[in-house]
């Protein structure tokens, strides 16, 4: 691939990833968030965290299938956007929903499993975000950095459970996300084992 294409694609991905946030801001200003805007904001930012996180996990399989190695340059950007929406999600909960009401925050984080797992996923994303730059890769060493960043699958799985455990009856969306996540993890595991034999590497 020509280097020029990534120069176009990266800003495009950046802009695309901002669309849900812009839409959210627009709807918030125009009354488009319905009767319970806080709940709607919480749900939207949570859903986009998972969509974008799962998209970031699709980068490597897509790179292998297409042989387009430049794609790897998008992974960090997309991953950081997942952290961005997770942060919006958490702040919506902390500031708008509970308004810093600490007794309930603590009760939630420690006693309510769906929030415990969601919060854990958020902490993982923060750690991964904080170690996502070249300096940290160097500092940790590639191997350790890789092991650490495999936690992204755990964050994804916890995020899916967070979603699954909060819905009352209609579990279709978290189930779809869970299956997608499992499939992406599957391609990694399969590839990991198959590598020495097939060498269909990129």
């Amino acid at each position: 691939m020509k280097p020029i294409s990534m120069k176009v694609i990266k800003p495009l991905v950046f802009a695309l990833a901002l669309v849900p946030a812009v839409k959210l801001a627009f709807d918030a200003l125009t009354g488009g968030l319905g009767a319970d805007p806080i709940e709607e904001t919480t749900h939207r930012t949570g859903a986009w965290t998972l969509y974008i996180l799962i998209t970031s996990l699709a980068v490597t399989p897509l790179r292998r299938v297409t042989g387009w190695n430049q794609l790897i340059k998008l992974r960090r950007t997309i991953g950081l956007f997942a952290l961005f929406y997770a942060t919006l999600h958490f702040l919506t909960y902390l500031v708008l929903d509970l308004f810093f009401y600490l007794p309930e925050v603590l009760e939630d984080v420690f006693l309510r499993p769906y929030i415990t797992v969601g919060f854990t996923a958020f902490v993982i994303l923060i750690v991964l975000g904080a170690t996502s730059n070249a300096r940290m890769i160097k500092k940790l060493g590639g191997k350790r950095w890789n092991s650490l960043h495999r936690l992204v699958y755990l964050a994804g799985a916890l995020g899916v459970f967070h979603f699954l455990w909060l819905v009352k009856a209609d579990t279709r969306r978290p189930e779809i996300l869970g299956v997608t996540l499992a499939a992406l993890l599957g391609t990694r595991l399969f590839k990991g084992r198959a590598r020495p034999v097939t060498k269909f590497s990129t």
Partner: protein
Amino acid sequence: MIIKKPADIKSDEITPESVYIDRRKFIGTSAIGLTAAALGSRGSKLLAQDDRQDDELTSFESITTHNNFYEFGTGKGDPSRNAHTLRPRPWTVTVEGAVENPGEYDLDDLLRPHTVQERIYRMRCVEAWSMVIPWQGVPLGDVIARLGPTANANYVEFVTLLDPIQMPGQRRRVIDWPYIEGLRMDEATHPLTILATGLYDRDLLNQNGAPLRLVIPWKYGFKGIKSIVAIRFVERQPINSWKALAPNEYGFFANVNPEVNHPRWSQARERRIGKFRKIRTLPFNGYGDEVAHMYAGMDPRTLY
């Protein structure tokens, strides 16, 4: 019971200034709360200071666009988008079971002998949000008295329409359709319990359970079964839909109770739709004086 008239609704439901002032108050409240927690039970009284504001009517817009009515989809906005397929007239209600006057009643015939009343009630959803709704309807007890339950009628069971064409949400088996709810006879005949036919002086919109729905203001909203096609007088406690789906999370009685948390979330506070801050949830949704006696001697923890 709240006796405000619709004329009292303020148009400035969202007041940036008051929200701003509330916030500052709230920081203070939180600080008191933390101190109170440290002080133990004496302090918890401080924490429980009354943060409830007036029960202002929730806007018609919110009441008719924020609905849990899975027969039209599981999103809050789905019913108002999808419920146009429901045909609320002509409507037949089947009355059966342990009752002197069973039969298939045309809805208008069923209601004709009764005078429609206005009742402004708080509505507390099990999901920890709430509204204040001006209903029109008839006391269920009056209807029941005319139907004449026999000695075996210990409970009343209600059934929602089952028709996947009119109710597209029923094409997916999120719930074991049709939706079922039930009340003990003393709850059903309690003067606060009504069969609602309208709100804000208009016929019920389809998304609110047209043409006939139950309203029991001291219970979680899911007890208020919508679009009722059958009323059955039965001897044994009915199995209501949510209890059937998740018996550890939803019970038969489902009285609003801030002391008993949902297994997955707190029931101590609620967000009044249209307001920013959460408020304390009241036992029996604030109707304890009228209804608590019916549950005397029962373990309140079994009443979720």
